């Protein structure tokens, strides 16, 4: 065992930090620092800056323009990016669809779609969940029927994150109703500008509408947009889900959230002393910090055990559960720390680039919305209950 980073790794960290200090635009950094809402333009700008540096696709092979970093390098990059208050890289094209295309896409699909993911021409979203297919994903009903050289798609997807920005959606569709439900699913790429596609926002508990319903009514999709073989989509879907979980622990986000929490708890006064000297609050902060210190190592143990470029197996369920609990607790503590000022709902402030808090404390307005938003972590990407099922079945063999 050796817990020290090598000289090379430390140099890499310095290089990443220098780049972030130089390149992350201040208006984006400030929004992320204060938990404010990012626009599509903000996300695209940051993607472009990373792509110009060659650092956008940290999980891609070099021949497609990726960095081919190992697990430790990716972890270092994630930690530094979060501490610098860089936006989260929107994962749908880069870390979800791309691995599927590398593994199962044909050459034409790779040539057509991969460069457009990197250069930001396409914004992808995910068409997996349906109103009656959440945790039981294989029971999707959206159907695609072959008509000449097109599939005709009818049905509905839901919880489509940032679908309002997207021009492409990768979908699980049912192409065979006569077989076991997992055996009749195909993986289809659909241009959202095709007639018959409608996107409707879903307003959430935090006042935002980051998810959507997507409706398909006689949407004609060229047959060349089928990934792999017809009816084999479930295999690709599961492959994608394991990749979705590679960064699921969110250690970088938690590091940044803990730093913010400590800063706030040191500056908020209660009864004449800073909140971090209140034994009850200090104990809560210490508890989650202790969990996070262990989580960093658990995360590195799991991701470095996986072969280079591969996703970890059922152990990633462990990372998802513990990682999301830590992130949720941190968001809960920040809300608690803010006190009475966590009550006002100030959407104009959350949307604006102006950081002067109209009421009190710059960290206050986003604290409660962010706490509510973080409830999604234990629901999406396979609810934590499903992750526990996976652990019971695959690791415990129960």
């Amino acid at each position, binding site marked *: 065992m050796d817990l020290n980073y090598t000289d090379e790794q430390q140099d890499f960290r310095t290089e990443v930090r220098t780049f972030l200090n130089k390149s992350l635009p201040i208006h984006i950094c400030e929004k992320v620092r204060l938990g404010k809402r990012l626009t599509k333009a903000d996300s695209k700008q940051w993607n472009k800056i990373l792509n110009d540096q060659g650092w956008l696709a940290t999980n891609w092979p070099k021949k497609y323009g990726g960095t081919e970093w190992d697990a430790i390098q990716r972890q270092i990059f994630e930690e530094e990016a979060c501490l610098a208050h860089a936006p989260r890289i929107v994962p749908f094209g880069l870390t979800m669809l791309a691995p599927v295309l590398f593994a199962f896409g044909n050459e034409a699909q790779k040539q057509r779609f991969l460069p457009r993911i990197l250069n930001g021409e396409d914004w992808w979203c995910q068409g997996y*969940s349906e109103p*009656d297919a*959440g*945790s*039981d994903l294989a*029971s999707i009903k959206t159907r695609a029927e072959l008509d000449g050289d097109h599939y005709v798609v009818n049905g509905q997807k*839901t*919880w489509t994150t940032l679908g309002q920005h997207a021009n492409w959606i990768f979908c699980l569709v049912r192409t065979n109703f006569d077989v076991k439900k997992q055996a009749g699913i195909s993986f289809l790429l659909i241009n959202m500008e095709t007639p018959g596609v409608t996107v409707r926002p*879903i*307003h*959430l*508990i935090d*006042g935002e509408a980051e*998810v959507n319903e997507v409706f398909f009514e006689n949407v004609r999709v060229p047959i060349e947009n089928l990934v792999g073989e017809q009816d084999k989509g479930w295999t690709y879907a599961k492959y994608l889900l394991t990749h979705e979980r590679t960064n699921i622990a969110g250690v970088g986000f938690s590091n940044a959230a803990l730093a913010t929490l400590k800063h706030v708890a040191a500056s*908020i*006064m*209660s*009864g*004449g002393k800073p909140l971090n000297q*209140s*034994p*009850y*609050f200090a104990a*809560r902060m210490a508890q989650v910090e202790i969990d996070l210190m262990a989580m960093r190592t658990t995360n590195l143990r799991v991701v470095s055990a996986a072969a280079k470029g591969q996703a970890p197996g059922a152990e990633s369920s462990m990372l998802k559960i513990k990682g999301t609990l830590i992130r949720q607790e941190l968001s*809960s503590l920040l*809300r*608690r720390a803010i*006190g*009475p*000022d*966590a*009550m*006002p*709902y*100030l959407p104009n402030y959350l949307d604006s680039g102006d950081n002067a808090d*109209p*009421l*009190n404390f710059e960290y206050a307005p986003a604290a*409660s*919305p962010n*706490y*509510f938003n973080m*409830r*999604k972590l*234990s*629901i*999406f990407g396979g*609810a*934590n*209950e499903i992750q*526990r099922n996976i652990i019971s079945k695959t690791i415990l063999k129960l």
Partner: protein
Amino acid sequence: MDFNHTEERMILRDMLQRFMADHYNHEARRKLIASGEAYDKNLFYKLAELGILGAMFGEENNGFGGSGFDLMVVFEELGRAGVIEPILSSCVLAGGLLAELGNDIQKTIIDDVITGTSILAFAHGEPQSRYNLNHVVTTAETDEAEIIINGTKSNVINGKQANLLLVSARENSNEYDETGISVFIVPLDSKGITCIDHHNIDGTSGARIIFDNVRIEKVARLGKIGAAFPAIETANARAILAVSSEAIGAMEAAKTLTIEYLRERKQFGVPIGSFQALQHRMADVLIEIEQARSSVINLAGHLETKRDTRERYVSATKNLVGRVGQLVAEETIQMHGGIGMTDEYALSHFVRRLTMIDHLFGDVDYHLERFITLNVA
């Protein structure tokens, strides 16, 4: 011992429950809030006509209730429906303070509060005070026949919807002293007042109110100079009982929605309520809500006892209700999945209110610390 409400209170409860079921629905409430309104004025007057506002006051103030169990019965139903109308601010907090401190002339205002024609707000918390009731730095200086108020009040519940403010200010002593604090009646439209209105996360309304050399007459003071703190603490105790009862109503509503969902929602071909993992968690939610209810009953039953006894129950109840509120909020969302997070579905509104109640009048940690201090004293 008798754990049943009196017949009068059961009639009050049934009447209010029926009225809310007929006149208050989630969709209308959601649209009202989205339109920027603070509350439904018609509904507020109807609640006044039903005597709900009067039930917050004792007979000596022309009300017909005012005891701990009256507050409990009414606020549980208001919580079950998700009411945002200004009853807590006007009738419990500021109204309670006026009933406690006011002279006969000042108390005539209560008649208008009971009919809903006057709305009061209690401007007490300040940007630096957090949950500490004694941390008042707003000043009141006497200038011959007048008093001049300077300072900033924050998160004043329904501050902008009120026509009269009850404002706490320091006339003498130091920053954290309990002595030296007085309460004054100040019309919202007085010269020198700036009022910034905002919605809260849970659909209720608050305000930041800045007092810049606001001049009022001496007769606007409630009670003796610098002696208002015990009455502020009493009004706060009543408000904590009210929001804790409201939390019970919101928890019951969230529980009901979740049980229905567990029965109806099918995944893997069966209702998700058939999974033992969820059954056990729902059982725990039920147990904790019953504990919260008992804790609220304890406080309601000790609201009129001597200060030290009452305040132990105040902090015990607010701590326990805060803990259970968070559990119920987080578990009911999780058991619903994504649908539980949507604005369209009523659950997310009960969850928001339950969560924000912990930010009112002291949170779980504040009251744990206070309970320990009260035990040592």
